[in-house]
C-alpha cells in the first residue's frame, strides 16, 4: 500500500515538473533539445494521471496516426540510444543475458527487455505501454522484441509488416501494406475507444512531410565547405524527427536549427575548426563513444559531413504523391533505406558521396544490426570500385560498450586518415 502511494506521489511530481517546464518554455525564445525531451518524457511518464494512452513504437513506424489520436508515442530505440550514451548498456545487457537472452542479440532489445523488469536506465525506465506498434521495415528483430514485451506487459500488439523490396516495390507489396494501414487505424480506434479524425491525420501527415523537408534542408547545409555541423550533431538533433514528427513544436525547432546552420555556413564557420577532409558515416552511431570519436576525427581535421542513418528520416519524401497523404504512407514507410536491396543501398551511398563531396567512407560494422551491417562489405567493394575512395570499417556495437576496443580502433582511424591525407596530397600535385 505504502509503495503504491509513493508511486502515485512520484507521478504527481513528474507531472507537475513537466507542466512547469512546459510553462516556462513559453517564455524561452529557443527551446533546446534537452527542454523538449524533458517535457516529452515527463508527459509520457505522467500519462496514468492524465488518462492519455502510451504506445511504444519502432523507430521506422508510422507515428502520425498516434499523434492524430492524442496517443503519446514512446520509442524504446531512442531510449536505447540514451542508455548507450549514458554508458549503461553493458550492465543492462548483462542482466538480459542472465534472464536467458543470448549475448549475440541486438543490444537495443536486450537493454530494453531487462530495463523493463528493473526500471533501469538513465530516466528510471520507460512508462508502461498501453499498446505496442511494431513496424518491421527496419529489421526482423523488432518483431521478436515486441513479441517478448507484448507477453511481458500483456498489452495488444499491432504489427505493420512491410515486405522487403530487394529490387522493386511491387504492386503486391503496395496492396498489402496499404490494407494494413486500414487495420492500423482500426486497431487504434479500438484501443482508444474513439474514432480517428481523418482530417486531423491529414494535417499531422502534412506537418510530418514538412518536417522531413526541413530535416533534409538541415542535412544539406553540410554541403558547404567548411561544414557548419557534423554527423555527430545530426545524431543529436535527430531525436525529435524520430519521436515527435508531426507536431508543431518540432517544426519550430527545426526551422530555428536550419536558420542557425545556414547562418554558420554563410559565415564560413566550420564545426571542425580546420576542416581538411570530409567523410561519410554508415550505420547506427556508436552511442557510447560519440565524444571520443568526434575528438579522434577532429584531431585529424576530418569532418563527418553526412551519414546514411539520419538521412533515413527524410529519404522517402520522393514517394509522397498526389493529394491524399494517407495513400502515400504505404510507400513512404516501405521503401526506407534499410528495406531495399544491398545494391540499391550502395547506389544511395554513392549519391551521397557525390553530393557531399566526400573523401572517405567510415562503416560501423554494428554487431547489433544485421540488416544494416550485412552487405557493408559489398557496399565497400562497390564504393572502392566506382569512386576509388578509401573505406574504414569499425567493429563495435551501438549500445553495448563492452564491444569496443579503443586501442584497436584508434590505430585503424590513424591508418585510414594517413591514407586519405596522402591521396589528398597526391591529387593536389
Amino acid at each position, binding site marked *: 500500500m505504502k509503495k503504491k502511494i509513493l508511486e502515485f506521489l512520484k507521478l504527481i511530481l513528474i507531472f507537475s515538473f513537466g507542466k512547469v517546464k512546459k510553462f516556462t518554455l513559453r517564455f524561452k525564445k529557443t527551446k533546446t533539445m534537452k527542454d523538449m525531451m524533458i517535457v516529452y518524457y515527463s508527459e509520457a511518464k505522467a500519462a496514468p494521471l492524465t488518462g492519455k494512452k502510451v504506445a511504444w513504437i519502432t523507430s521506422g513506424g508510422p507515428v502520425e496516426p498516434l499523434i492524430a489520436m492524442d496517443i503519446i508515442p514512446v520509442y524504446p530505440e531512442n531510449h536505447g540510444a540514451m542508455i548507450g550514451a549514458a554508458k549503461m548498456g*553493458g550492465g543492462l545487457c548483462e542482466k538480459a*543475458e*542472465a*534472464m*536467458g537472452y543470448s549475448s549475440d542479440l541486438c543490444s537495443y532489445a536486450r537493454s530494453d527487455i531487462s530495463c523493463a523488469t528493473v526500471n533501469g536506465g538513465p530516466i528510471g525506465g520507460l512508462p508502461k505501454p498501453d499498446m505496442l506498434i511494431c513496424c518491421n521495415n527496419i529489421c526482423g528483430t523488432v518483431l521478436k522484441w515486441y513479441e517478448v514485451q507484448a507477453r511481458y506487459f500483456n498489452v495488444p500488439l499491432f504489427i505493420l509488416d512491410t515486405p522487403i523490396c530487394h529490387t522493386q516495390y511491387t504492386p503486391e507489396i503496395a496492396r498489402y501494406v496499404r490494407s494494413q494501414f486500414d487495420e492500423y487505424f482500426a486497431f487504434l480506434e479500438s484501443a482508444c475507444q474513439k474514432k480517428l479524425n481523418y482530417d486531423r491525420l491529414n494535417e499531422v501527415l502534412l506537418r510530418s512531410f514538412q518536417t522531413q523537408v526541413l530535416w533534409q534542408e538541415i542535412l544539406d547545409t553540410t554541403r558547404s565547405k567548411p561544414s557548419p555541423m557534423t554527423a555527430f550533431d545530426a545524431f543529436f538533433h535527430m531525436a525529435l524527427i524520430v519521436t515527435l514528427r508531426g507536431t508543431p513544436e518540432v517544426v519550430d525547432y527545426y526551422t530555428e536549427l536550419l536558420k542557425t546552420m545556414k547562418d554558420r555556413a554563410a559565415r564560413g564557420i566550420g564545426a571542425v575548426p580546420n576542416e581538411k577532409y570530409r567523410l561519410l558515416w554508415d550505420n547506427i552511431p556508436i552511442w557510447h563513444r560519440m565524444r571520443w570519436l568526434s575528438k579522434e576525427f577532429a584531431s585529424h581535421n576530418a569532418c563527418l559531413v553526412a551519414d546514411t542513418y539520419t538521412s533515413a528520416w527524410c529519404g522517402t519524401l520522393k514517394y509522397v504523391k498526389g493529394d491524399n497523404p494517407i495513400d502515400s504512407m504505404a510507400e513512404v514507410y516501405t521503401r526506407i533505406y534499410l528495406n531495399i536491396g544491398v545494391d540499391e543501398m550502395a547506389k544511395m551511398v554513392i549519391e551521397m558521396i557525390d553530393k557531399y563531396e566526400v573523401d572517405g567512407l567510415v562503416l560501423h560494422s554494428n554487431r547489433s544490426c544485421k540488416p544494416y551491417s550485412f552487405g557493408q562489405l559489398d557496399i565497400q567493394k562497390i564504393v572502392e570500385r566506382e569512386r576509388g575512395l578509401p573505406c574504414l570499417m569499425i567493429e563495435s556495437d551501438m549500445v553495448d560498450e*563492452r564491444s569496443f*576496443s579503443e*586501442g*584497436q580502433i584508434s590505430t585503424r582511424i590513424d591508418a585510414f586518415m594517413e591514407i586519405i591525407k596522402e591521396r589528398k596530397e597526391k591529387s593536389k600535385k
Partner: protein
Amino acid sequence: MKTAGIDIGSITAKAAIFDSGKLVATKVIFTGYNAEAAGLRVYEEVLKETGFDKNNVVKIVSTGYGRSSVKFADKSYTEIMCHAAGAHFLNQHIRSIIDIGGQDSKAILLDDNGKVKNFVMNDKCAAGTGRFLEVMARALEVNLDEFGAMSIKSKQPSRISSLCTVFAESEVISLIAKGEQRQDIIAGIHESIAARISSMIGRVGIKEPVMITGGVARNVGVVHALEKKLGMKIEVSPYAQVNGAIGAAILAASL
C-alpha cells in the same frame, strides 16, 4: 567399503580414496599428454598414501574430460554429477555450486536431496575461467598466487569492459599506461570475471548456500568479487581442486 574416484582434467589428474564414508587420501598430478597413463599413475600414488591394496578397493568411478580413458574404472560420471556429490558430502545444505577451472567454468543447481537439478557450462570462452586470470597476471607481472590478495586491497576497482580476454588484455595495458593503480586494475580484473560468472549463473538460477570449487576457488579475490556481485556469502571448499574426485569416490559407493 573402500572406493576410489579419479578425475582426469586437461591440466591435472586427481584421485580420492574413501573408506566407509570417510575421506582417507587425495592426490594431484599433472595429466600430461597421456590421459590413460595419468589415470593409472594418480590412482597408484594415492593408494600408496593409504597403504591399501588395489584389491581392497571395491568400486572405482572416473570423471572429468579424460574419464573414458580410465579403462579400469567401473563407471564414469560427468564432472557435474561428481562436483555435486563432493559438495553435498562436505556440506549437505549446499544448493548451488560454482566451479571455475583453468579452462572452463560451470554453475550447478542442486535440489533438496543434493542431486543435480540444473546446470550451465562455459567451455567455449576463456573469459570467466582461470585462463583469463593467468593472462592478466602475466600482463601485470604479478605472481598468480598473490593476484587475488592484491585485488582486495583496492578501494576503487578499475572498469574493464571488454568481453574478450584478448581485448581485455590490451585494455589492461592501456590502463597501465594511463597510470591507474595496479591494485585497482587487478580488482577490476576480478570484478570482470565475477560479472561473467554471475551472468552465466543467471541462466540457471542460484540458491543459497553457495559453494565454490575448482582451482580458481583458492583465489580470495575472485571469491570476494563474486560475493559482492551476487550479494551472498560463498563457502570455499577446502578440497576445491579435488572436489570432483571426492564426488566420484562417493558415487562409487552407491554403485
